């Protein structure tokens, strides 16, 4: 039995599922293959799915009893940290309360499982109810190539053929390398480790502690002391009755300072402010996973090739410019665009790069590449020592002075700031920084 | 006044302790509720055990004696128990949860139209039946269940109750039993007896359990030595029973036996929930594992992080010293 598919999607993560959903809705005959026991089972990451593409794939998903998502974001916080203090930019607005939400917190094992159920529904409703498949617990070993063109996949002894292959295998992009779109060697300084703990509370306690209302939720990013001198940042997201607390850490930097992600996370948790947040919680899950830095230099040479398209983190589509990690929404959009390109290719019956390059064009034209391009400097800036250490310290120092009332004549804020700057940096350095930041953000 | 009937299981010539635990508990319940507690023993020479049973307060003992019971075959045992139930008309019929019990409990319930709770960790009488606690979800949680009906069957995990003697001179009823060959639906061909004089793990005071970490002959030798010093029974994780290294009857856990010794030493066992399900009720748990993060340490009172091949020799030596 070797019926040919229009497309084989490798990987049932956000990118793969978004592609599959788009294919199913457009009556394509496809096969989605996921290595895990079920979609999401291998997936430790999770956090905020930004943007509103989800409502394109599953209209009115928010109306569902249990729509696979945890909470919608209406409260955002960027926190600078030194040893004792935190100084936050805090924004909360009822403006975010109405669907389609601009960000929902998700837990991947649950979300992916739910979304693949939705894809199955779409398959059942399509003309290929009997001929399109979601196959789990199957690992794709290789992409079949015939004179430079992808013609299918190989798993174990079996080969399956298709006009096109969408590689949505995520950050450990082995197959991407096999088809020659990524160099075998990717320098470690373009790679980060994400670690995360899921901490459970009584739901009432959680909602009171973080001032949540109904299904509203908060996302909090951290810069500074959080990472114990390692480049990176921290995050805290509120789920239904748990929080996701974690860090994203530079692998190279960690090696050089020989620190382990686990130690740094424990360090983070000892901060008085964090300690207050997690008091009384029970750790129910710990996980670690590589995540790309969003540095363009780590991107594959190209995102397409005869018969192949790269989507999601396999294509290194991710951005972490401090105010949020955006990987899942990029994965989703790229999956959609790739599938749309395949649909065009099917119409023209041409699956060569001639047609497939339109995917690249569409992506460049989308907010994904636009943002990745325009915020590269911000990405680099975030990873400078000044931004990682001096600025947070300086800001917290200023905050401490500014908010302390010592029954003494209070200095003008300008003096306080001057002092803080002297102690942690120099006006010159900051001027440069401010200038850079102004440009990059 | 109604009757609680207790099944007395026999294992190589001895009354199984677990069924005396059940009898002790039932006696207790009967006294509290003004019921009578009776016992039934079905065995090759069942009458040998009457005195042993009397110690635990049964007011009446049904004895079903027949050569056919030499080995466990479900058809005759069922026939015998059905007959006794019709004589005793028990409201509650309690068993120790052995493999033999598991083999017939459902059939007996179906035959008698009785409600049944299997493998409870405890049970009480309520009007119209019993309520009991059952470990479920691989013993991650307890289900508080009840069974209601004119007749209720229940099987109890070994180690759930303490022995409590209360001698009585019970009336002994010998039940005549005969069964001709063609009634035998199933025939027993042979018994591939397990490791000879192995300790009954359900009754062992101490158990040394080996896991995949025990890789070779040398490892198994260490396990045996340790077991000898402690006069312990040897158990094993599935990893070693399915690979045939240890006899399948030694498997401890969800598929295997549920044990609750005073001392349980897990050697080279990771502590998967299905294994822990079988040993978590041990009084003192020692775990030896080279992986400091192995889940077994979450249930161990004494966790030794290290290579079993390096740990066991001095451990055994030290225990020898202490022992004499």
């Amino acid at each position, binding site marked *: *039995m070797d019926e040919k598919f229009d497309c084989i999607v490798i990987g049932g993560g956000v990118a793969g599922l978004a592609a599959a959903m788009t294919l199913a809705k457009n009556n394509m005959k496809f096969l989605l293959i996921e290595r895990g026991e079920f979609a999401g089972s291998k997936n430790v990451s999770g956090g905020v799915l930004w943007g509103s593409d989800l409502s394109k794939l599953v209209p009115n998903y928010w109306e569902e009893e249990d729509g696979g998502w945890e909470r919608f974001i209406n409260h955002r916080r960027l926190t600078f940290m030194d040893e004792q203090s935190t100084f936050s930019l805090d924004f909360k607005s009822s403006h975010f309360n109405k669907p389609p939400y601009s960000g929902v917190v998700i837990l991947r094992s*649950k979300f992916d499982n739910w979304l693949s159920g939705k894809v199955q529904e779409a398959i059942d409703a399509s003309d290929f109810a*009997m001929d399109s*498949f979601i196959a789990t617990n*199957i690992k794709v070993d290789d992409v079949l190539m015939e004179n430079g063109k992808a013609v299918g996949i190989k*798993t174990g002894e079996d080969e399956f053929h298709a006009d096109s292959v969408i590689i949505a295998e995520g950050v450990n992009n082995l197959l991407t390398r096999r088809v020659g779109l990524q160099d075998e060697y990717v320098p470690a300084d373009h790679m980060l480790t994400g670690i995360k703990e899921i901490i459970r509370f009584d739901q009432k306690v959680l909602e009171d502690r973080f001032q949540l209302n109904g299904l509203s939720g908060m996302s909090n990013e951290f810069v500074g002391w959080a990472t114990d001198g390692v480049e990176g940042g921290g995050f805290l997201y509120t789920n239904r009755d748990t929080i996701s607390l974690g860090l994203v850490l530079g692998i190279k930097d960690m090696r050089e300072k020989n620190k382990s992600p686990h130690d740094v996370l424990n360090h983070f948790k000892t901060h008085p402010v964090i300690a207050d947040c997690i008091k009384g919680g029970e750790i129910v899950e710990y996980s670690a996973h590589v995540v790309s830095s969003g540095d363009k230099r780590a991107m594959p040479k190209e995102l397409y090739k005869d018969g192949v398209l790269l989507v999601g983190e396999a294509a290194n589509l991710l951005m972490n410019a401090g105010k949020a990690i955006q990987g899942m929404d990029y994965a989703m959009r790229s999956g959609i665009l790739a599938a749309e390109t395949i649909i065009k290719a099917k119409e023209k019956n041409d699956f060569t790069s001639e047609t497939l390059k339109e995917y690249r064009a569409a992506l460049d034209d989308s907010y994904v590449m636009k943002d990745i391009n325009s915020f590269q400097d911000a990405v680099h800036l975030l990873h400078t020592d000044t931004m990682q250490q001096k600025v947070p310290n300086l800001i917290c120092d200023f905050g401490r002075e500014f908010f302390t009332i010592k029954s003494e004549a209070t200095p003008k804020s300008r003096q306080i700031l001057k002092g803080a700057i002297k102690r942690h940096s120099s006006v010159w350095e900051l001027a440069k920084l401010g200038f850079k930041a102004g440009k990059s953000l | 006044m109604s009757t609680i009937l207790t099944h007395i299981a026999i*294992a*190589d010539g001895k009354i199984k302790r677990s069924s005396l635990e059940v009898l002790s508990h039932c006696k207790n319940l009967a006294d509290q509720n003004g019921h009578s507690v009776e016992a039934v023993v079905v065995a090759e020479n069942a009458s040998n055990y009457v005195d042993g049973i009397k110690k635990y307060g049964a007011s009446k003992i049904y004895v079903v004696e027949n050569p056919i019971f030499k080995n*466990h075959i*479900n058809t005759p045992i069922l026939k015998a128990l059905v007959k006794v139930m019709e004589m005793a008309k028990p409201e509650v019929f309690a068993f120790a949860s*052995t*493999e033999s019990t*598991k*083999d*017939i*409990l*459902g059939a*007996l319930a*179906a035959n008698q139209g009785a409600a*049944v709770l*299997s493998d409870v960790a405890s049970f009480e009488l309520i009007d119209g039946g019993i309520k009991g606690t*059952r470990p*479920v*979800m691989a*013993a991650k949680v*307890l*289900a*508080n269940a009840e069974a*209601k009906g004119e007749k209720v069957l229940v099987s109890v995990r070994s180690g759930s109750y303490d022995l409590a003697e209360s001698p009585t001179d019970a009336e002994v009823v010998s039940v005549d039993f005969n069964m001709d060959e063609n009634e035998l639906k*199933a*025939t*027993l061909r*042979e*018994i591939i007896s*397990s490791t000879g004089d192995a300790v009954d793990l359900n009754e062992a005071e101490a158990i040394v359990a080996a896991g995949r970490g025990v890789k070779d002959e040398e490892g198994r030798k260490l396990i045996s030595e340790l077991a000898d010093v*402690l006069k312990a029974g040897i158990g094993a994780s599935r990893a070693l029973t399915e690979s045939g290294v240890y006899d*399948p*009857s030694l498997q401890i856990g969800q*598929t295997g036996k549920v044990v609750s010794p005073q*001392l349980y030493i897990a050697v080279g066992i990771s502590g998967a*929930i*299905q294994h822990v399900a079988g040993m*978590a009720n041990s009084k003192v*748990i*020692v775990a030896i594992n080279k992986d400091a993060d192995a889940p077994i*340490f*979450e249930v161990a*009172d*004494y*966790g*030794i*992080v*290290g*290579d079993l091949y*390096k*740990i066991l020799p*001095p*451990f055994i030596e*030290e*225990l020898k010293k202490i022992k004499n």
Partner: protein
Amino acid sequence: MKFYVCIKMVPDVNAPIQIKEGKLIQDADRMILNAYDASAVEEALVLSEKHGGEVEVVCIGPQKASETIRKALAMGADKATHLLTTGQEKYDSGTYARILANFFNNKEYDVLSLGKQSQDTDAGLTGSMIAELLHLPYATNAVGLEIEGEKLIVKRQGDFGQEMIELPTPCVVTCSNDMNEPRIPNLKGIMASKRKPLEQVELSSLGMNENQLIADTAVLSYSAKPERQAGQKFDGEADEIARQVAQLLDTEANVL
């Protein structure tokens, strides 16, 4: 031989669970094919591959259980019957056994194969119940099966080692997962499963009377197990910590 394998959809015990007001709550609704049933399916497949025959699976469960059934079909079972429930019913082993016995009543078969117990409840009753209801010979806790002519030879794990039992067919057997390593469906199997016959049957069509469907046991609530606290951990020089713990077993735990 014609095998019927009874398969059950059960919650994955490895998925995180918690108890809220006595109710059992699972973080993600992860339902799987009962591991013991997977072994039963595997063994039936092996035997029918060897001696010829047919393997049909039967499952009582809600709509979602069709995924579980597909899994068995993907493994290689020839066809399936899905006895539909709403998922709201409070059935126990007894009710399932009565339903299944009812279903098998007018069927032709040689072997009814079940799992020795449900992974979630560990009840271990349904198999021998069905045998009694259908007046069939049976064996439980099988760790090996063989076919000799019209007979099924069962190796079962008993209290005193393994027993070799000879059953005339038709008969009932319940399987341990120690029997085999169930195959993981490959892609071809998964694809083929979609085209295999899966018949959905309404329970009502079995014409059972109401009180046959009333369970005489019920779970009133769930509660956490008395938590076992992790004790001391000894990490260091092997000889030292080994002797130290040995001493503590004597002096502190006094279990020697």
